[in-house]
């Protein structure tokens, strides 16, 4: 049972690692590379807390073996911010308080970032379907959806109303009518 030598790009940097055949990409990220932003929730592809971007597409890193990453380009939540500058999705999660315990947050950030890479103008419905593979047991999702739609507006160059305006009846709720 030899270890596998795997060469990848992780968050833009060439990374090589050794892994056991049964280790998932999530195991490798967390236990071998100390990239502990990706979380292990269900280990069965249901919760999305381990979401990473592989070659531009989101996947559950718990459902991919480390050895399968050979030659592929992986982006984790650690690679979303540009240095000290948060990605608009991260900034809007903060402003909207779109998290409580925070365990699901890295998965949501990565999945939402991938959505906005493909579509800068998603509808609320498209956003909810896209994020259906990410479970949050705290927020009830509404603040998360608001944060993602606001981040999209920022990335389109618009200046969305502050989160306080939502409390007065603006934002997503108003869009439903």
């Amino acid at each position, binding site marked *: *049972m030899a270890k*596998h030598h795997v060469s990848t790009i992780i968050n833009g940097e060439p990374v090589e690692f050794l892994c*056991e*055949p*049964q280790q*998932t990409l999530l195991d490798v990220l967390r236990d071998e590379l100390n990239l502990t932003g990706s979380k292990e929730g269900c*280990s*069965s*592809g*249901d919760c*999305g807390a381990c*979401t990473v971007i*592989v070659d531009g*597409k*989101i*996947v*559950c890193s*718990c*459902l*991919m*073996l480390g*050895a*399968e990453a*050979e030659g592929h380009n992986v982006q984790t939540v650690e690679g979303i911010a540009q240095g000290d500058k948060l990605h608009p999705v991260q900034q809007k999660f903060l402003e909207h308080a779109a998290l409580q315990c925070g365990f699901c947050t890295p998965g949501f950030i990565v*999945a939402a970032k*991938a959505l906005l890479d493909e579509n800068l103008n998603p509808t609320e419905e498209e956003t909810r*379907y*896209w994020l*259906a*593979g*990410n479970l949050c047991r705290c927020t009830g999702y509404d603040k998360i959806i608001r944060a993602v739609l606001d981040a999209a507006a920022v990335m389109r160059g618009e200046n969305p109303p502050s989160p306080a305006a939502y409390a007065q009846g603006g934002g997503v709720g108003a869009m439903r009518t």
Partner: protein
Amino acid sequence: MPNLNFTAPTTVDEAVRALASASGLAKPLSGGTDLLVQMRSGRIRPELIVDLKRIPELIGIREESDHFVVGAATPGVMIYENEALSRAWPGIVEGLDLIGSEQIQGRASLAGNLCNASPAADSVPALITARAVAVVAGPNGRREAPVEAIVTGPGQTSLGKGEFIVEFRIPKPRPHQSDAYLRFIPRTEMDIAVVGCAVNVTLDNSGVCTDARVSLGAVAPTQLVVDEAAQALIGHRLDDDTLAKLDTAAGRACKPINDKRGTIEYRIKVAGVLARRAAAIAFERAGAR
């Protein structure tokens, strides 16, 4: 999972040799969205995993004169982004698209969904109704099998030791031919079919059905090909009498189980309703071509 080995060959022959020569359980890996879950839970304990995604012909979609060729390990996201296939067979693509989340679609494949052999596999009924053929590689060379001949029971397939699916050959639609797939789940996303139904019809210029295939999922140990339901459509327009006969034939074919997703009576009822609705969509699509 002690003593697990992993190999990622780049040719079909190497993969066949690796799978055939393993002394214990050897599993081909495409997207892994079922396989890794089963390994993690201890339901299966393979000695060898053979990753098929490094074999070029197993990934991608190409068109030949009268059919599409879809590589067995092509991920869902690559399939539903293919405009030609989506236009040709909207039912196949909408069935596949119903599997899991966006994350799952980034990995899950048609061959994996088929060979996992769940009675509720969403991509299978519309492949069956399109008369898709699986090209199977194995120690004795290649053979072709209709998709409905692959699954023999829950978790069981007709593939022998060392065999795996290389690609699917899906005939292109004839004029006025189209399909639809519907599944019923009690929520809007991320669930397993209570019932699934694919209908594929060919119409003549006046809208009369000249050929039909109907397949049901999640109502028997394997997906069903319901000839009686197809016969109810052939020679008819989609009038009330035809729909009633289709409904009855679909319900009669069901051999479901009672489980937390639905009772036997409920599944039989829903099978008829989905057959009616899927037929209406397929007729409309076929008529619009």
